[in-house]
């Protein structure tokens, strides 16, 4: 089910009992026959119920804060503090402090970026139509392996072929992403030319690769380009761009 502002408004109105009588009847009628909508309403219901409990949220936040403080203390304790070298020790403590601060900022950003990658990345789907040199038996088995997620074997075979078409380049690039060889994925996705039909797809996966590499700054111009391109990935790109800008 596609999520739209209108559906959200309706579900919220239904849960808050603020819909007019006739809209309630129509909504319940649809609800009775639409299991997807039932699931969606249930998600919203639990979300509202759980997160309206501000006290528990505050308590959880306090626990997170306490946990961070304890970890910081433990890290500081392990810093050298022997008396004759107090000056050195103090410098180290300051360096550790600054380092920790930078590290925490990095980890925070890193986690957010990785969460976004996790939220938006889906492997490029296997296409029914095989293009150009994909029709051999060897390529058939590559496609099969790709479809079942055996990315290692896809990479091993495709790497040996010097002139891959765009479709196979995308399969290979996605395989690299799944076996943590992002740098190789970058050069593959960059290689897909603007004249072909896979240009937009390649830009999308390139922007996700940069996200995985924790360099969201490089993703942003690509996402803007995709939005201007106004194709199939525009909607996703817009959402991801917004999320990245929120993270800044």
């Amino acid at each position, binding site marked *: 089910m596609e*999520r739209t502002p209108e559906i959200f408004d309706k579900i919220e109105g239904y849960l808050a009992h603020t819909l007019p009588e006739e809209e309630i009847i129509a909504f319940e009628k649809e609800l009775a026959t639409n299991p997807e909508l039932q699931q969606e309403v249930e998600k919203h219901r639990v979300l*509202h119920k759980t997160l309206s409990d501000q*006290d528990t949220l505050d308590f959880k936040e306090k626990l997170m804060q306490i946990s961070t403080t304890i970890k910081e203390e433990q890290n500081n304790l392990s810093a050298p503090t022997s008396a004759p070298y107090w000056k050195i020790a103090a410098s180290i403590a300051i360096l550790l402090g600054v380092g920790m601060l930078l590290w925490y900022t990095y980890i925070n950003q890193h986690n957010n970026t990785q969460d976004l990658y*996790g*939220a938006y990345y889906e492997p490029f789907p296997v296409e029914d139509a095989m293009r150009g040199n994909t029709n051999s038996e060897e390529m058939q088995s590559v496609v099969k392996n790709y479809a079942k997620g055996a990315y290692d074997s896809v990479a091993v075979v495709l790497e040996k072929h010097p002139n891959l078409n765009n479709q196979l380049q995308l399969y290979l690039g996605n395989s690299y992403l799944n076996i943590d060889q992002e740098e190789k994925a970058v050069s593959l996705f960059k290689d897909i030319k603007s004249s072909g039909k896979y240009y937009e797809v390649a830009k999308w996966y390139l922007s996700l690769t940069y996200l995985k590499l924790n360099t969201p700054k490089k993703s942003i111009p690509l996402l803007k380009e995709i939005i201007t391109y106004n194709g199939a990935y525009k909607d996703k790109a817009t959402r991801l761009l917004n999320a990245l800008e929120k993270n800044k």
Partner: protein
Amino acid sequence: MNTTEDHKILEGIVTGNEVVITTFYRKNLPYIRQYILQNSGNEEDAEDVFQDALILVYQKLKTDSLELHSSLRTYFYGICKNMWRNRLRKNKKMIITEKLPEDAEIITPTVIQDIEYKEREHIYRRHFLKLSDTCREVLSLLFQGNSMKDIAHITGYSEGYTRKKKFECKRYLIEMIEKDHAFQELQLNPEKEL
């Protein structure tokens, strides 16, 4: 067996006394961490279980439904262990080194049911707290039952921007929750509603 010491800790938990909670945290986390690390978990799992179990105690105190038939520590460890066993069962990694659950009498079936029922809530809360400040502000006001007009008035945003933000933040939150492995496992093995 509910000692004065335990009373003080319980009071500290329900009033959010940082000193009391920090002391409790510092004293008891190592034990839970050791248990979870020995039973297929990692540091992050240990922190999650520890915090989620404390939330369960907090909520029980708030609703006056905490029945303590042992020391607080025994009760708390019992909750943590049951919670972890439950999570392992859900993701089919059930390898527990312990032979017999030594807490069968302390942790009643009602508490076990509570642990199950709260699993989804922990996931929702964890992701909500990762949102940006703006998203949290707008969504908190929404969850507390405010209309778009009220939220716009309170935050100073325009009504159009508030509605847009509300939708984007909520959709993002739901997507993050859906991507969470623990949530997917709960969908496959749903807990019983109370």
